[in-house]
């Protein structure tokens, strides 16, 4: 029989043996990895809603999940969560597009100041157009708005300068830009603060070249300041909630995800320090027959997230081979101090009881 290249390929190269036949939970499309992360490597995260799952699991899995903008220990977890602490490395909330990401980096380092930099809601509270939901009730004063942003940017700069790996989840290609300077908003103005004005805002759908250029800019921006930084790109499997492209949302979703997948794959191929991780394929692959989506066909089930993270840890970490020591923690330690109520009881009630009891 004549010889040809397919005869020498491993079983992972064939659909029947690696997708159709194995049990769904055994599917592993990751492929060869470019690098491995140790328990001490500082891992930063950014990206769309799906990236929050990655951040949560990294934190729980003993990774050195980098958080440079931590909630103050005074704040109980429910309040800290409401104010967007710990969702990602810094309190930047969801970053849906590559355009948003490179602009955030430039803004944090004082290289880009958008013309439309603050919105005022009907109650007079101030909204950050680039993090419109970060502060429930809005910022109450300009002083607080400015001071918080300065603190936030300092946290981003620290993250850029100290991370060992950035896991960036690409979510969307559709975005809303300022006509004045191209500033990219995470949400269309008017949806959550601000107001939409066709003279000031425009719709734009990033294409492959746009995303590639943004990824290159992000990579070069970070490595200029942190030469040993590595990157893991992944594409969110969560479909668009709505499309302003004029296309059916399903068609628009396929376009978006295709662009992001193509750009991420192409960019990863071109850089030794950039890897592509197939979250998208794991969740949307036909092998699971939709089981990794909730009934709304958008939200990813915990089972799906677990499959993604199991493969991430298996391929991208050396944790199983390393001694079982506590990883250095940059996450918020559990508060072991007495609660406020207990302390009040100690300094007030007990002393008063002694006097009047």
């Amino acid at each position, binding site marked *: 029989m004549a010889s040809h290249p397919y005869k020498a390929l491993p079983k992972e190269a064939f659909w029947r043996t690696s997708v159709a036949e194995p049990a769904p939970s055994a599917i592993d499309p990751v492929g060869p990895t470019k690098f491995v992360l140790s328990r001490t490597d500082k891992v930063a995260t950014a990206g769309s809603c799906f990236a929050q799952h990655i951040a949560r699991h990294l934190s729980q899995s003993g990774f050195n999940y980098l958080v440079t903008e931590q909630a*103050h*220990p005074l704040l109980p977890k429910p309040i800290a969560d409401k104010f967007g602490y710990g969702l990602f490395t810094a309190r930047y909330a969801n970053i849906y597009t590559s355009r948003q990401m490179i602009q955030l980096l430039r803004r944090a380092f004082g290289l880009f100041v958008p013309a439309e930099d603050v919105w005022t809601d009907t109650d007079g509270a101030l909204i950050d157009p680039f993090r419109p939901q970060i502060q429930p009730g809005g910022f109450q*004063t300009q002083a607080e708005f400015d*001071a918080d942003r300065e*603190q936030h940017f300092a946290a981003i700069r620290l993250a850029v300068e100290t991370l060992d790996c950035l896991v960036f989840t690409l979510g969307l290609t559709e975005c809303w830009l300022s006509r004045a300077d191209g500033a990219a908003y995470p949400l269309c103005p008017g949806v959550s603060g601000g107001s939409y004005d066709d003279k000031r805002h425009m719709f734009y759908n990033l294409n492959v070249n746009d995303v590639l250029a943004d990824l290159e800019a992000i990579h070069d921006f970070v490595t200029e300041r942190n030469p040993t930084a590595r990157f893991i790109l992944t594409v969110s499997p969560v479909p668009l909630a709505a499309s302003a492209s004029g296309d059916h949302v399903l068609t628009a979703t396929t376009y978006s995800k295709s662009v992001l997948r193509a750009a991420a794959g192409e960019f990863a191929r071109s850089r030794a320090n950039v890897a592509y991780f197939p979250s998208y394929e794991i969740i949307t692959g036909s092998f699971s027959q939709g089981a990794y989506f909730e009934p709304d066909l958008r939200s990813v089930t915990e089972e799906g997230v677990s499959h993604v993270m199991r493969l991430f840890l298996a391929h991208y970490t050396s944790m199983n081979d390393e001694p079982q020591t506590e990883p250095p923690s940059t996450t918020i330690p559990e508060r072991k101090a007495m609660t*406020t109520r207990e*302390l009040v009881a100690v*300094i007030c009630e007990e002393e*008063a009881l002694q006097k009047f009891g």
Partner: protein
Amino acid sequence: MKSISLVVIGNSHLQDLEEAYINCDKNKLYSVHTSNFVRLYENRYNPMVSIVDGNTLFNQELERDILDLIEKVKSDALITSILGSEHLIWSVQGQERPFDVILPFAPELPRIPDTELIPFGALYSLVKEGIGPYLRFNKRLSDITSLPVFQLLPPLPVGSQDIILETAPETLKSMLLENGVPSPIIRYKMWRLWIHVAEEIAAELGVSIIPMPEEAKDENGLLKRQYARDSVHANASLGLLTWREINAFFS
């Protein structure tokens, strides 16, 4: 002038009032009112508040005792001094990472250098969730007694830093020695936040607040040393000034 019968209900900040009441010149004070006290820090009233299935429930024994006392002394009104020390505790607890907050209702207060800014909304939520359920006891009291309820606010933070460490109990002292005594400005800001939340809740519930004695303030707007009992409580001297305010309120 008819003498008013008051039932005064409070936590540890009741001490200065009760001491001043017992020890003062009764001719000067008692012509306006007579007072009986309910001490919320007594063990049988603990917990004062419980949250069950999202509902706020108040200590039944406490309610019964208050109603019995009101009946016994034929009370005309209630005065409450509920909680009042949390602002200091939060200031001390927060010292492990020195912090600051910008209060929208007091924008003139200076920023504290080399501190971490906590969003106002987040600290506001902390305070409101911490003291709100207890302060709502004022409304519960007016509902079950049909008497007017007047609320006292906790005394200003003391200006002196020394007294904070000198008078701190051991549990607090170890935190103070480890992280330092919170600055007067952050203690003042946390007190202002406590007061702001308390005044908001009082306005919502229709509870009147008895004003604080102005003469107790030092040149920086903090509590004069002579009126401080310890790191957070006032002494009977301030209690006397407070009774004068109460009398003026009812005159």
